């Protein structure tokens, strides 16, 4: 989070504001001046409209300078999402693993302490278990 970023809550949702992303499209305050009023401080008044209306307008922000989350998600899911591992299967390519993971080789030995790795799915890599790009040469296809 940038030090200039701000957040505002009404207890149900929190609206996040990233000034660096704002291109002053003015959508938010033309739609809902009761909540988004750049002449006031703080410029976001979370009591100015019902939650649903705030969400509707936040979603209109063209640059995502404004975003929101339900507070119940912030308390439970959000920290996990940011820190847990992510596994991505690439079509006709490898499987990419990033984030918080440990990897063990076929002998059960812990290998690879990098933050991200790319594992072969085609069976033809010369650097198993890692991908070395061989899937392109062999024309591997796979969801």
């Amino acid at each position, binding site marked *: 989070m940038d030090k200039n970023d701000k957040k505002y809550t009404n207890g149900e949702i929190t609206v996040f504001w990233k000034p660096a992303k704002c291109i002053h499209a003015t959508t938010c305050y033309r739609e809902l001046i009761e909540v988004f009023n750049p002449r006031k401080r703080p410029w976001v008044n979370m009591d100015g409209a019902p939650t649903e209306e705030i969400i509707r307008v936040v979603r209109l922000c063209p640059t995502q300078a404004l975003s929101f989350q339900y507070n119940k998600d912030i308390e439970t899911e959000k*920290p*996990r999402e940011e820190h847990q*591992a*992510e596994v991505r299967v*690439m079509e006709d390519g490898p499987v990419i693993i990033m984030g918080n993971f440990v990897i*063990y080789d076929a*002998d059960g030995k812990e290998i690879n302490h990098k933050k991200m790795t790319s594992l072969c*799915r085609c*069976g033809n890599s010369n650097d198993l278990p890692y991908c070395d790009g061989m899937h392109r040469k062999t024309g591997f296809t796979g*969801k």
Partner: protein
Amino acid sequence: MENETTSISPAEVRILKNGPILIKGVFNFRDSSGKITSGEQELYLCRCGGSASKPWCDGTHNKIGVPD
């Protein structure tokens, strides 16, 4: 919040000998169509290139072998 984030165990990725990739624990999984599943899961991903139900392992490696 810091304490909470550090308490999450890392996902466990195991290269199974002459077999698939086993991934288990709490993680986000995105398939090649972009569909995401989250939370605790245990997956076996084909590593021999021969599975008929990719990305999942279907045991084909037993027939064609996986180089290690």
